[in-house]
């Protein structure tokens, strides 16, 4: 007796009890759906966190962690910018480094007419623009001549437009920073990412920043390379170089974002696993529902089983018939559950603003797993059916 024939037979007996079949499936639909939702949202969230943390990729941040000795000899060490101009020039000689993104940030007060505000003022080099997406919503971004000429121009964050200009367009207006005039040429877009938040920020070309604040040191240096392998080498070389130049042992280090991202990925995976297991419990309960209804079905159809045996069905064939029937039930439930999970995950990620990831592995896993549930929970009822005595079964009313 072929599989297709069993399948058609199973479908027709499920159709004979529509309401019962649908209600039984509902347990599987909700169970599979819940697992799919959890996995999809979990994977989507993990992917989003990773891109947020690592950024466009292949970058590594240099940081300065002074030793206890250094701190003791210079208590103000944290107030000083750790990277000098000659450091940058020396780093530029390392061939694995594609570009050096350097910036310096300082709190500063800004005045426009009668309004004042404390902002973080950041001087950036040209490479900074390429690495950090600084999309302007009004006006323009910096040009090469702004950097080279040290022009007195600046980009402001969206919040500044609200706080200092009462929401009016600030492009073309002149603000005072450390009593020096700066023309605003553009307003940055509101940040959209989960981890970004809007603050009062002004960005200036580094040359400009240097003349205003009288410091040529950088507080932040990020290296970029062509590949992650080259980045590893570049990071090590850079740290060694800086430690040599500053006569420090291990104070200059590299912060590898990918390692952090991997750590966070592990955390989200564990979270997904925990919530997924809870969803799995509902799938298990759904499976028990299937077993229950299949047992009822076997009892109800005792006479049918007797007739089939009298006509020559072997115990194995009866077992197969009921196994395929319960498997069909859970398979249909599983497929509907995948659609439910997919739909719900899409809705959730639409409102949460991160991608939901339904991979084909998850879909295939859902289909296979629901079939397995059908077989596992169908085994007991099917076995009961196949063990019936044909004579007793034929007499069953």
């Amino acid at each position, binding site marked *: *007796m072929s599989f297709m*024939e069993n399948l058609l037979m199973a479908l*027709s*007996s499920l159709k*004979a009890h529509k309401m019962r079949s649908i209600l039984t499936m509902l347990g599987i639909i909700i169970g599979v759906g819940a697992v799919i939702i959890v996995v999809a949202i979990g994977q989507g969230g993990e992917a989003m966190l990773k891109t947020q943390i690592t950024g466009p990729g292949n970058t590594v941040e240099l940081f300065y962690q002074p030793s206890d000795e250094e701190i003791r000899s210079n208590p103000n060490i944290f107030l000083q910018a750790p990277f000098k101009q000659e450091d940058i020039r020396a780093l530029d000689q390392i061939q694995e480094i594609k570009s050096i993104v350097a910036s310096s940030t300082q709190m500063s007060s800004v005045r426009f007419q009668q309004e004042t505000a404390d902002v973080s003022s950041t001087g950036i080099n040209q490479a900074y623009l390429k690495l950090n997406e600084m999309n302007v919503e009004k006006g323009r971004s910096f040009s090469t001549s702004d950097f080279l000429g040290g022009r007195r121009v600046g980009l402001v964050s969206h919040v500044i437009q609200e706080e200092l200009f009462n929401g009016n367009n600030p492009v073309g207006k002149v603000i005072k920073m450390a009593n020096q005039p700066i023309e605003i040429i553009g307003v940055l877009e509101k940040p959209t990412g989960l981890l970004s938040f809007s603050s009062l920020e002004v960005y200036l070309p580094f040359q400009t920043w240097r003349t205003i604040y009288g410091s040529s040191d950088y507080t932040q240096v990020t290296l970029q390379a062509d590949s992650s392998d080259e980045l590893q080498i570049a990071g090590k070389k850079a740290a060694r170089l800086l430690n040599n130049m500053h006569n420090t042992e291990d104070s200059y280090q590299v912060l590898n974002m990918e390692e952090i991202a991997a750590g966070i990925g592990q955390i989200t995976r564990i979270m997904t696993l925990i919530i997924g297991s809870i969803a799995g419990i509902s799938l298990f309960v759904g499976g028990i529902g299937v077993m229950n209804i299949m047992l009822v079905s076997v009892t109800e159809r005792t*006479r*049918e089983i*007797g*007739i*089939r*045996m*009298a*006509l*020559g*069905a*072997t*115990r*194995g*064939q009866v077992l197969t018939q009921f196994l395929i029937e319960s498997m069909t039930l859970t398979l249909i439930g599983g497929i509907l559950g995948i659609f439910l999970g997919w739909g719900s995950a899409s809705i959730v990620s639409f409102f949460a603003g991160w991608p939901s990831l339904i991979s084909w592995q998850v879909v295939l896993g859902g289909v296979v797993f629901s079939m397995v549930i059908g077989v596992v929970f169908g085994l007991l009822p099917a076995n009961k059916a196949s063990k019936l005595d*044909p*004579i007793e079964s*034929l007499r069953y009313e």
Partner: protein
Amino acid sequence: MIQLESITKTYLLGKESVNVLDNISLIIEQGEFVAIMGPSGSGKSTLMNMIGCLDKPTTGTYTLSGENVSHYSDNELARVRNQSIGFVFQQFHLLPRLSALKNVELPMIYAGVSKSERQTRAVEALRKVGLSDRMDHLPNALSGGQKQRVAIARAIVNKPKIILADEPTGALDSKTSIDIMEQFRELNEEEGVTVIVVTHESEVAAYANRTIYVRDGMIQLLPASIKGASE
């Protein structure tokens, strides 16, 4: 053809063992039309189940077409039922969700017959019992006589050597009963099928060439005069 030798069937009722069949020996030749009669509880149903390979004897030997089936496994017995025996029951025992045609196809599904051949043979069997125009009806849409004819079509579709009918007219009116019994007679005379009918109606038994009386699990040899008087 059918040869029972010292067949005993013992059931345990609590601690007591009851011999439902007590040392029965019986031979039925190919092409016979046999009626089995007896009061209820006489063991005639058990005898029929034994002949139909639904039940195994406790002791004794059952030889069917030269095969000793007494110690066959469940799977082997299923094959024998499928290939060699056609069952007709008092309550028809059609599957209610399948059309007449699909019901007739059922034994062939278990015999592994291809789909197209199944259909051809099922149509042929239904035509033989005069139900060509009712093939797509569900059993509920058929009269009692029609249901029983579907059951007969199902019993003959695998071309078995034996048809076992358990009270085939028990749920039918007398006119329909005659039709059904005529059907059996036709199969017996024209196709040479061995027909064994279990009944308690002497009108039905009258169709048979030979009547076997069972009482208390034993075959009773009745004088011809008593048999004649009951007819």
